[in-house]
C-alpha cells in the first residue's frame, strides 16, 4: 500500500478519518461501587463494524464497562450513546445491543432451538419468521442437528456457538462478548477465534470483546484498549500497541520486553544516545520527537528483535553487548534465552532454531559466551 493511499483510504481504519461519525460514544463515563472507582472518567469512540477489544487484568474495570454498555450497570457519571441515540438510562431490554456472557448463560430448561428463538419471541416476531431465522442461525453455527438438545447435553464448543447464535439472532447493532473463548481449550480457542473474525466480517456487526488474554486481543482486534485501574492506558491497533507502546506499563503488559533504564546523553537527528544506569553502556535508539539531555528514560526492546550470536558482530553494528547464557528454554520453533550482560542485567532473547538440533545439541547452551545486538530502529524510547 502506497503512502498516499494510507492517507486517504479510511475504510479499514475509520478512527483515523476526521470526518467519520463514531457509532458508539462514551463521554466521561465513571462507575463507583462505594468508594471504589471501577471505571474512572473514560472517553471512547467506537466506529461501525469495528472489532474493539477491551484488554486488562482482572479487576481493571473492563467487565464493568461492558456491563454499562449492555445496561446492567448505570454509570455514576457520564453519557453513553449508540448510533446517535442516548442510552445512559435505557433499560437493557430496550437497547439495540446483545451480549454473549462469559458463562454463556444458556437457559438450562430450554432446548437449543428455544434458547436461540427466545429473543425473537420476546419481540413478538411471527412464528413462521422465527422458525426461518432460527434455522438460518443454527445453520450458520452448524448446530442444525442439535436443535432439540438441552444445554447440558452439549460440549463446551457447542454451547459457545449456541450462545453466539442466541446473541446474534436479533441482529443487534452491537454485540458484546465477555471473555468469549475463555472456557474453551487451546486448540478450539484458536479455531474459534478465526470463526469469530469471519463471522464479524460477514455480518458487519460492531463487536466489543472483553478479554484478559493478550494473544486473543492481538488476533481479533481492529483496535485494542488496554485498561488498568479503571482507565485506558493506551488505545490503538494491535501493531501500534505492540510496536510503539506508550508507557512502560504497556510495554510490559503486552508481550514481554527488555527495559533499560538510563538518561539521555544527546540527540542527533532522530537518533538518541542513552547512557544506562547500570554498567558502562551507551545505546542508541530512534526517536522522532525532540528530547532534552539528561531526561530519565527507559529503552524497551522486544525479545525477538534482539540478535544473538556466538560470533563477533561485524564492525559498525549498533548496540552490541557481551554476555553469557544463564538459562535456555527450547520451544521447538524457537528458543528463549536469558542472557546476563555486563552490568548484571538479564535480557530475554528469542532465537529462531534454524537448524535441526540433534543429540540434544542446541545452537546455544548454558554458559555460552555470546554477543547480543539490536538496531536503533528496533527499540522504543519511553518517558513514562
Amino acid at each position: 500500500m502506497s503512502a498516499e493511499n494510507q492517507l486517504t483510504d479510511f475504510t479499514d481504519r475509520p478512527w483515523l478519518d476526521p470526518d467519520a461519525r463514531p457509532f458508539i460514544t462514551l463521554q466521561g463515563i465513571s462507575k463507583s461501587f462505594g468508594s471504589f472507582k471501577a471505571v474512572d472518567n473514560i472517553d471512547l469512540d467506537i466506529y461501525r463494524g469495528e472489532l474493539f477489544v477491551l484488554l486488562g487484568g482482572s479487576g481493571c474495570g473492563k467487565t464493568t464497562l461492558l456491563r454499562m454498555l449492555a445496561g446492567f450497570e448505570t454509570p455514576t457519571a457520564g453519557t453513553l450513546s449508540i448510533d446517535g441515540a442516548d442510552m445512559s438510562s435505557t433499560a437493557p431490554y430496550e437497547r439495540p445491543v446483545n451480549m454473549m456472557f462469559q458463562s454463556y448463560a444458556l437457559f438450562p430448561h430450554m432446548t437449543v432451538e428455544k434458547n436461540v428463538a427466545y429473543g425473537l419471541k420476546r419481540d413478538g416476531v411471527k412464528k413462521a419468521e422465527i422458525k426461518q431465522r432460527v434455522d438460518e442461525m443454527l445453520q450458520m453455527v452448524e448446530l442444525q442437528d442439535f436443535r432439540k438438545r438441552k444445554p447440558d447435553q452439549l460440549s463446551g464448543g457447542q454451547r459457545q456457538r449456541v450462545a453466539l447464535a442466541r446473541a446474534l439472532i436479533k441482529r443487534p447493532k452491537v454485540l458484546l462478548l465477555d471473555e468469549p473463548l475463555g472456557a474453551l481449550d487451546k486448540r478450539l480457542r484458536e479455531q474459534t477465534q478465526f470463526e469469530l473474525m469471519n463471522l464479524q466480517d460477514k455480518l458487519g456487526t460492531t463487536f466489543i470483546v472483553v478479554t484478559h488474554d493478550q494473544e486473543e486481543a492481538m488476533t481479533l482486534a481492529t483496535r485494542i484498549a488496554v485498561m488498568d485501574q479503571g482507565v485506558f492506558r493506551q488505545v490503538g491497533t494491535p501493531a501500534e500497541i505492540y510496536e510503539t507502546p506508550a508507557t512502560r506499563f504497556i510495554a510490559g503488559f503486552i508481550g514481554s520486553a527488555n527495559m533499560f533504564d538510563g538518561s539521555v546523553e544527546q540527540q542527533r537527528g532522530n537518533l538518541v544516545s542513552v547512557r544506562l544506569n547500570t554498567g558502562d553502556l551507551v545505546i542508541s535508539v530512534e526517536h522522532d520527537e525532540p528530547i532534552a539531555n539528561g531526561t530519565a528514560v527507559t529503552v524497551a526492546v522486544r525479545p525477538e528483535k534482539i540478535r544473538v550470536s556466538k560470533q563477533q558482530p561485524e564492525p559498525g553494528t549498533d548496540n552490541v553487548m557481551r554476555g553469557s547464557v544463564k538459562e535456555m528454554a527450547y520451544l521447538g520453533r524457537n528458543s528463549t534465552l536469558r542472557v546476563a550482560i555486563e552490568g548484571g542485567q538479564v535480557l530475554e532473547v528469542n532465537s529462531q532454531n534454524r537448524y535441526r538440533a540433534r543429540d540434544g545439541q542446541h545452537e546455544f547452551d548454558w554458559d555460552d559466551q555470546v554477543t547480543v545486538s539490536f538496531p536503533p530502529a528496533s527499540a522504543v524510547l519511553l518517558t513514562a
Partner: protein
Amino acid sequence: MKGKRSTFLITCLCFGFAFLYIPIFLLILYSFNYSKLLPVWGGFSTRWYVTVFQSEDVWDATLLSLKIALMNATVATLLGTMAGLMLVRFARFRGKTLFTGMISAPLVMPEVITGLSLLLLFITLQQITGWPGNRGVTTITIAHITFSMAYVAIIIQSRLINSDLSLEEAALDLGAKPFRVLFDITLPLLAPGMVAGWLLAFTLSLDDLVIASFVSGPGSTTLPMLIYSRVRLGLKPDINALATILIVTVAIGVLLAGWILLRQHQRKLKAEQLASQ
C-alpha cells in the same frame, strides 16, 4: 482397616439403628396383636385395622389434616417464594439484614410460644373486628402458614443464592421485561425448590400438634390431635394400626422421592455422556 472391620464401629452402628428403629418396629408389631391389652401378645390379627377404617372420627380427622396441609403448603409456598425472591434479588434496602434475620425467627421460636401468640392474636382480632367468629380450619391453616412459610423462604433463598444471575440478565438482554423474566426464567429454575418447599410445608402441617391445639376450636380435630387425645384416655391397639398406616405412607413417599431423584441423576449422567461424544 481393609477386610477386618472394627468391632467397635459395628457395635456403634447396631446400637444407633436399634435406638432409632426398635420403637417403630414394636409399634408395627403390636398393631397386629389380637389382644386388647397392649403388653399381652394374643396372636396375629388385622382386626384393629378394620376398626380404624370403620371409625368415622379417624376419617374426619385425616381429611381435615390433609385439607389444612394442602392449603397451608400452597399458600406458604407462594408467600415463601415471594419473600425468598425479595431477600436475594432486591438491591439493599434499609433493614434488609433485620428482615433476613426475622424471617428465620419462626424456625427457632418454641412452638408453644408461636401457638400462644397466635391464639392471642385471634382473640384480639375477634374482639375488634368480629373475625374469626369461631376458631377452626381457617385459624389452624393461618397458624401453619406463618411458620411453614419461613421454611419455604429459606429453601428458596438458598437456591437463589447458588443460581446464576447471568441467566436472568441474558433474558433481559434479549428483550424480556423484568416481569417476563420472572415467569420465563426465574420461576422455572426455582421449581424444584418450590416443590421441595411445598412438600416440607405439607409434612410440617400434617405433623403439628402443639400449634394446632392452641388455635383450634370445637369440632376441628386434626389427626395428630386425635391420636394424642386417644392416647391420653389409655393406649388402645387401634392407634397402633393408625400409626402403622402413617409410617407406611411416609415410607412409600420417601422411596418414591428417592427413586425420582435417582432417575434424574441417571438421566443427567446420560446427557453428559451424550455431550462428550
